[in-house]
């Protein structure tokens, strides 16, 4: 079965309407004119259809949200370890100085 877009249908009906221009007015000719105008309104509204398909694509970021607190925890752990190491080294330097080793400040 051949399918036709509203645009194609509108073009064909407009061509038909032009052919009937010189014929006397009658109810069928009037209905055709009204149908063409209705289709023109549909074409205007149809131009916005592509925007409705946007809702079908999504970006999944829930996993990122779940993983970020784990990195926070890793940062906290690392900061504590670094503080501990700094304290140990500081103690070691005191011990070295006490033992007579000359260290630069």
């Amino acid at each position, binding site marked *: 079965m051949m399918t036709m877009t509203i645009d194609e249908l509108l073009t064909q009906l407009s061509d038909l309407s032009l052919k009937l221009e010189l014929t006397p007015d009658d109810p069928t000719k009037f209905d055709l004119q009204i149908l063409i105008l209705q289709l023109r*309104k549909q074409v205007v509204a149809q131009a916005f259809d592509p925007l409705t398909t946007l809702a079908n694509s999504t970006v999944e970021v829930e996993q990122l949200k779940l993983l970020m607190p784990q990195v926070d925890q890793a940062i906290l752990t690392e900061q504590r370890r670094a503080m501990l190491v700094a304290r140990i080294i500081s103690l070691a330097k005191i011990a070295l100085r006490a033992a007579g080793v000359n260290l630069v400040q």
Partner: protein
Amino acid sequence: MYQTCRRTRLLLLLPAIAALTGCVTPVAVRGLSAQLVRTQLAYSLSLRGYFAAVEKFADAQVKIADYRIDEITSQMNREFGQRAGAALGHAATPEERQRIIDQLVKDVAGNTSADLPLKRKITDAVTSLQQRDRELESAYLVILAASQKLDEYIRLKKADEAAIQELTRAVGLNSEKITSIVDEIAKLSQDLTLSMTKTQ
């Protein structure tokens, strides 16, 4: 003399330990990470501007579409009016005239009310665009936050780095310089391993 010798040995030892343990974050990695966050931040601002422009354009298109629909509706109503006018000229009785007028009122009302679903469809489509923009914007902010979090970790002074920094300070060396030296040593060691593998 003994002190100088010990200090020299310590100087050589520090980068070697760092290279062997592989605990120092390379300068290039820190640099890329920081730049990535800056780029993503700039991109998010550009994205916001892009969405705002597209939405403004869409709003203008809605107004144009509404205007065009109203224009076509007026044209159709004129057609209905002309048909009714012609029919009234041939109407023989008051009842027949009334029937023509009733039909005209019905046609005009039906024609105008048919526009409402069309206009609603258009505004719904634009609302969907705006909603999608907000979703993409907020998803990108989560991506940016994740990058910033990773960057925070990469830039973090790790326990091993803290130790090296303390030691280098004690012997009067720039820790950034040591980090670069460590990077170089690591690279050299990698190249050496590769060449050895090739020669075997």
